[in-house]
């Protein structure tokens, strides 16, 4: 264990609940968050087959309001935000002027002139600062709402049934990547059909003072169908199986969306300029002429687990780097996401391995995701 300066960790509104449940806590981006309550493997499988309950209150909410809100977001982000309908959500990114990814975001359009931007905990301040800076000259207000919300997610095939027992909101009419205001267990909530697990599920944005009440109601409603509290550890293996990128791993300021294989989020066709447009146009052209490394999936033949930063090798040469790796509870084998040279990126490419602390372990190259739910 390395010793670091003691820093004051932030606690979510559900902190006492986590401790009463015996959670193993971890420092995550300055927040004291539940890593797991029992076995992370059991929590993972519960989300795949039944349901899991997550505290995601560390995520960073930023509200953008005003007549110029859509224009500001179209300028500040790479997506076409003005085209998002009221009640819908969009996955997008915020980039630097040089095209490097500052963060990936979900933007909810709550009303005609009101948006909620949800940033990763580790980047919330960076995103807030960038939005404030980029708002100069726009008729829009950028508000730090990080302390205004607790966020509770219910994920897994049983989650619609659990939520339906606690709300009159029209969940059947609520599509994937949409959100509507409603009441859950008597608590006012923004009910969003989003998540980061590869399963159907909901994210509930509520006032922090309502978080415990809502958590307890959800836990009770899910008791009979196998709902369990879930920590960040299984959230990471769930998103990895689902092939979803994680900032700091698959996405960094050193990569443009085109390097990350996510060029489709960049909307050059939208009106007006946006931060990074020029650099991203160059990155797009470069990617067409000379394909960058490709994000692929790797499945182990053995049992040793590839970790972020490990070299991907073929014929004794380094051909890429692992960005995320873990034992996959669903596949029963170690898996990884890695950026590899285009020549070795095709599914089924022979002779690819990962250098695991000096030994080249064989890996199968596959297309992402590793897991896709049955609809």
């Amino acid at each position, binding site marked *: 264990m390395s010793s670091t300066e003691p820093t004051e960790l932030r606690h979510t509104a559900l902190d006492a609940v986590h401790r009463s449940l015996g959670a*193993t806590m971890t420092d995550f981006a300055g927040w004291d968050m539940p890593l797991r309550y029992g*076995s*992370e*493997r059991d929590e993972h499988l519960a989300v795949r087959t039944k349901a899991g309950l997550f505290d995601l209150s560390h995520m960073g909410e930023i509200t953008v309001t005003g007549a110029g809100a859509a224009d500001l977001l179209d300028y500040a982000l790479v997506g076409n935000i003005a085209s998002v309908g009221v009640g819908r959500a969009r996955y997008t990114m915020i980039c630097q002027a040089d095209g490097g990814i500052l963060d990936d975001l979900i933007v909810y359009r709550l009303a005609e002139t009101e948006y909620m931007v949800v940033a990763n905990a580790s980047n919330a301040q960076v995103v807030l600062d960038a939005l404030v800076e980029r708002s100069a000259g726009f008729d829009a207000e950028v508000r730090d709402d990080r302390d205004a919300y607790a966020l509770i997610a219910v994920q897994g095939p049983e989650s619609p049934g659990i939520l339906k027992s606690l709300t009159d909101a029209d969940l059947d009419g609520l599509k994937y990547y949409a959100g509507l205001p409603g009441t859950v267990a008597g608590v006012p909530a923004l009910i969003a059909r989003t998540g980061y697990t590869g399963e159907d599920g909901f994210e509930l944005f509520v006032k922090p003072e309502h978080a415990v009440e809502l958590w307890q109601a959800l836990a009770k409603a899910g008791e009979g169908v196998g709902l369990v509290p879930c920590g960040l*550890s299984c959230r990471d293996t769930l998103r990895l199986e689902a092939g979803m990128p994680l900032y700091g791993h698959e996405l960094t300021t050193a990569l443009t969306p085109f390097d990350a294989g996510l060029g489709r989020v960049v909307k050059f066709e939208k009106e007006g300029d946006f931060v990074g447009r020029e650099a991203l146009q160059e990155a797009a052209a470069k990617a067409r002429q000379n394909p960058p490394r490709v994000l692929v999936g790797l499945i182990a033949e053995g049992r*040793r*687990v590839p*970790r972020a930063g490990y070299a991907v090798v073929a014929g004794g040469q380094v051909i890429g780097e692992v960005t995320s790796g*873990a034992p996959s509870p669903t596949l029963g084998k*170690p898996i990884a996401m890695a950026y590899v040279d285009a020549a070795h990126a095709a599914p089924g490419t022979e002779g690819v391995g990962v250098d695991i602390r000096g030994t080249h372990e064989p890996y199968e190259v596959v297309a992402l995701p590793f897991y896709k739910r049955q609809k």
Partner: protein
Amino acid sequence: MSNPQQLRYSKEHEWLSAAEDGVSTVGITEFAANALGDVVYAQLPEVGSAVTAGETCGELESTKSVSDLYSPVTGEVTETNEDVVNDPSLVNSDPFGQGWLFKVRVAEEPADLLSADEYTAQNAG
């Protein structure tokens, strides 16, 4: 959790049984198993190899991390637990029993092995 009284402990969270015919059994404690999370891979020292007290002799891999396995004593490895190699989750489910890791013919013990009470106190904070 309680640490069995009849065992002795290293600061690195290995346990060591009392020697029978000069051979002791080594495992990791429940405290260490809980800290690791679900163990998914165990690389144990080879039978016949020499291990040195306080030095790395294998590794335990969990969902989140890889941890070195240290030998609490100096000696020669006489047996490894193949059940754990095949099913590493035994380290979590029964760390002081079926989750044992290897047996060692003890040549030399370090002076700083802990009693159960001392080990419990070390991890009480």
